[in-house]
Every structure is written in structure tokens, then in C-alpha cells.
């Protein structure tokens, strides 16, 4: 399964991918994660790809994704074409306007909720991750939570997991 997270730098895009990839490994799967970063343009769009498979992973840069998660209009525009037929689109409904109905869509106003519920926009990524995990159910929640607690600063583990769980609830 090929999953692409995308958005602006600073939205925690790459962290989401790393957490998911590692969670897949903890769950006994094979996973690789790659990211693209601009040279100077820190504010520009950024992406993070995760490939998760039961078998060994030989392809490093898949042409098409099964899942696209996007947190900004420019990245939506740039990457919607990479989504496979039948692929799933996830997006922040406040930040992205979708102009196609080719794909099954899933959205929450993650950034807004994060700001309202956790006082910091940065938790949007964990909200979305929970939302995604529940909708797709390909990686165990336990593995993801373990991965979260390994990757986020110790002081924020609780908050991040709370956001993740809220994401799950929102998807139910």
C-alpha cells in the first residue's frame, strides 16, 4: 500500500509518515518512508511517502498512490494526479477544496479541530492519522500509539495520543 502525506512545511507532514511507517514495522510489516524537501522553500509544499507491504519492498518511488492525505491546496493540486484509480483521498476540509469526484473522499477540518481542542494547530496531523487509521484499518492502533510515543517529544506524548484517538472517534 502506497500512502502519500502532503501539505506545507511545518504541518507535521513528514512526522506523520515516519510514525505510520514505523508503526507498520512494529506491526510486523515491511515499510519504507521517503520524503521530499525543497531546497530553500521551507514554506512550499512538501510530501512524505510511505510504502507498506507484507512482502519485501523493492520499488522505492511508486508512480501511484493508494492513499493521498493532503493539508493544503497547492499540494492537493500537485498530487491528486498521483492517486490510483479507486484510491482514497483524505484532506483537511478547511484547507482544501476538492474539484473531482473520481475518488472516495474523507475529510475533517483537522486543523481547526486541533486549534479548538488542543490549542495548537500542530495536532492536526495526529487527528488525521487517527481518522485515517480508523477508516482504513491496516495498522493496529497499538502499534501507531507506540510509534507516536517514540517519535514525539516526551512532554507532548499524551496530547498527541489524545489527538490520534479523537481522530479515530471522528471516523466512527
Amino acid at each position, binding site marked *: 500500500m502506497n500512502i502519500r502525506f502532503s501539505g506545507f512545511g511545518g504541518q507535521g507532514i513528514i512526522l506523520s509518515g*515516519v510514525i505510520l511507517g514505523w508503526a507498520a514495522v512494529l506491526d510486523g510489516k515491511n515499510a519504507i518512508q521517503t*520524503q521530499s524537501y525543497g531546497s530553500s522553500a521551507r514554506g512550499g509544499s512538501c510530501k512524505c511517502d510511505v510504502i507498506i507491504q507484507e512482502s519485501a519492498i*523493492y520499488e*522505492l*518511488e*511508486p508512480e501511484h498512490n493508494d492513499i493521498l492525505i493532503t493539508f493544503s491546496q497547492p499540494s492537493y493540486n500537485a498530487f491528486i494526479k498521483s492517486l490510483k484509480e479507486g484510491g482514497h483521498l483524505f484532506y483537511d476540509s478547511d484547507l482544501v477544496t476538492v474539484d473531482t469526484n473520481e475518488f472516495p473522499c474523507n475529510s475533517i477540518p483537522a486543523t481547526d479541530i486541533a486549534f479548538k481542542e488542543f490549542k495548537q494547530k500542530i495536532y492536526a496531523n495526529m487527528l488525521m492519522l487517527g481518522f485515517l487509521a480508523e477508516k482504513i484499518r491496516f495498522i493496529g492502533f497499538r502499534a501507531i500509539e507506540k510509534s507516536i510515543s517514540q517519535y514525539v517529544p516526551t512532554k507532548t506524548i499524551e496530547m498527541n495520543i489524545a489527538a490520534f484517538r479523537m481522530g479515530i472517534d471522528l471516523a466512527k
Partner: protein
Amino acid sequence: MNNQKYLDSLKNKTLFLQGDEAAAYGALFAGCNFFAGYPITPASEIAELMSRELPKSGGYYIQMEDEIASIGAVIGAVWSGGKSMTATSGPGFSLMQENIGYACMTESPCVIVDVQRSGPSTGQATKGAQGDVLQARWGTHGDHEMIALSPWSSQESFDLMIEAFNLSEKYRNPVIFLLDGEVGHIREKVVFPDINELNIYQRNISLEKIDVFGGQRIPPMIEFGMGQRIHVTGSTHKSNGMRDVSSMEAHDTLIRRIYDKISSNRNEIAHFETHYIDNMDYLAVSYGAAARPTMGAVLKLRERGIKIGFLRLITIWPFPIDICTELGKRTKKIFVPEMNLGQVSREIERFVNCPVESVSKIGGISHTIDEITNYISANI
């Protein structure tokens, strides 16, 4: 924390690491205690990790003013007892060439990581490539041999880095660690070993004043400050290290020995992996990032009933001549997927009589499995 304690703290850990990071940890396990470097995409992660970890293990990280200074400091550290390394990408690797030759000439063991990016020149700095394969062999002036290794995964990046240090110590030669931007940047599972179960080659240091530059094919080294008052020079020298810039014999003896110590041990140094070679009509040869989709393609082609074998090179230099020569006799055609315009494929041509076809892709993105599968299907 000292080195042993530090490594014990990592024992048997499993981490999700980029190839770059895995290489850096590999170096730490190999006993690297000195890193000098200069930031460059896509190699900076190695420096950053080393700057964070080396002080914990009692080693030293320095950021120098440029890459020339970096390799210089690395060699200085070697003769002062350090196990040392640097990491860069094409532009910095080009700048290091003069002093890489110095390391060959003075037989200074050290590891130089080149995380290859899309060149020539500045090219596409954030994109991976395999364009420096022949530069690794021929980048510096004058006759010399070279050891170069190229991993295809994070785990191998870790494991092979230990091998890189071992080879460099054993053969007293710089080792080029040919990562590519793709393998350097994928994050994958890496399992650390127990340091106590690893085979770490200990530098052969002589405490007496002996001939450090001759007398035997691979002489022992010394360490500065022990009273031998050794003379180390990049000029032609006698076996005691003293300069001799006029005698033909001195040059011939020195250079041929430095050359032969590698080339005559080619088979010991050359690592590779073969798949399906017992029963094949065609052969794919690849390495590093390109080897992954190649492996995928070979599996796919086999499924389709095409008898194709796969030779994955791990050691690039000295070139694994024997296996190529042998397999060349048993195949109708050799396909070489590489992220360059055909560099390893050229070398293979020297040893085989069958057609050798480069399946090249440049521009920063490795081949897809389909691209290779389709290319081979169409060209057999």
C-alpha cells in the same frame, strides 16, 4: 560514556532509519571516533547524526570550512590514532579528490561517504543518482586502486559501513562508501547487532620503529606521538617513509605495491549477491538503489517464465571481475539498470563477449519495477 558503554546501549535495538543514518550508526559500531565534514544535501544527515552521537561515545565531530579541509582533517586524525570518516555528495567529493589520492599514497585508512546526487555540477541537489561510480575509481590523478561499496537498503548501509571500516583498516586504503540519494534517504527498519559479536578489524599498529610504507604488501601502521618519529608524505617515498622523488625504482615499487594490495585481493574484497543464476538465459546486473526495482523486475520476469538471473554488486571497486566473466559466458545478454548513463555497464563490457545493455535512468527518481520489466521484455 565511553565507546563500549555507548555501543552497549544500542545493542540489539531496532530502529526506523534513513540509509544515511544507518551508515552513521554503522560507523559508530565500527569504532569511528572522528568525523570531519561539511554540510551538503543529501549527506548532511550523516554529519548531523555524528555531531549528536560522537560526543556520547567519546569521539569527535568537527565541521570544517570546506570538503578539502574535511578530508585533510580525517587523514590527520588517522595518523593520530583515529578511526575516521567524512561524508559528502558529488560537489564535495570532487573537491576531495586531491586528498583522496593522498590517502591512497600514504595508505591512510579512512571512509569517505559519497551520497550521490543528480549531477554533474550542482544538478538537482535533492535528487538521488548513481553518477559518481567511475569518479570513485578515477577521480584523483595518477595510478591507484580503490575500494568502493554500495548498499541497497538501510540495513545494508549499516552492515556495509562496518565492512567499509574493516576493509579500509585491513588494506590501508581509503574506502568510498557509494550511497545514493535514494537509499540514503529511505527510512527502513534496521536492527543493530551486539557489538561484542561483531568482527571489528583492529588496526595493525606497530609500537616499534619499522617500515610503515613497504617491506611487505600491507605494512602495519604507526600512531603519531609514540616516539617513532615517522615521516608520512604524499610524495613518492621509500619503505621507511622518506621522500625519494628521483628514483624510478622507488616510484615503481611503491605504486605497484599499493595497486597490487587491492587488485590481487580482489576476490576477497568483492562482495556480491546472485539470484537464479543457475538456470538463466539473461542476466541483470545492478547495485544500490537501482538494484531494488531490478530485483523486483527479475522476480516479475521469472514469474513470466523469462529465465533471467540477477547479480547484485555490493563491492563496486575493485570490480568483481571473476563473477562477471563467468556469468558473461552463460548469458545471451546482460542488462544493467543504473541511475546514470551507463557506468558499471562499461566496466562489464571489458570482461564479457555478450552484449551489455545499459538500462539507464537519470533525473533523480529510480526505476520503477515496470520500467525495468518492460525494457528487458522488449529487448531480449
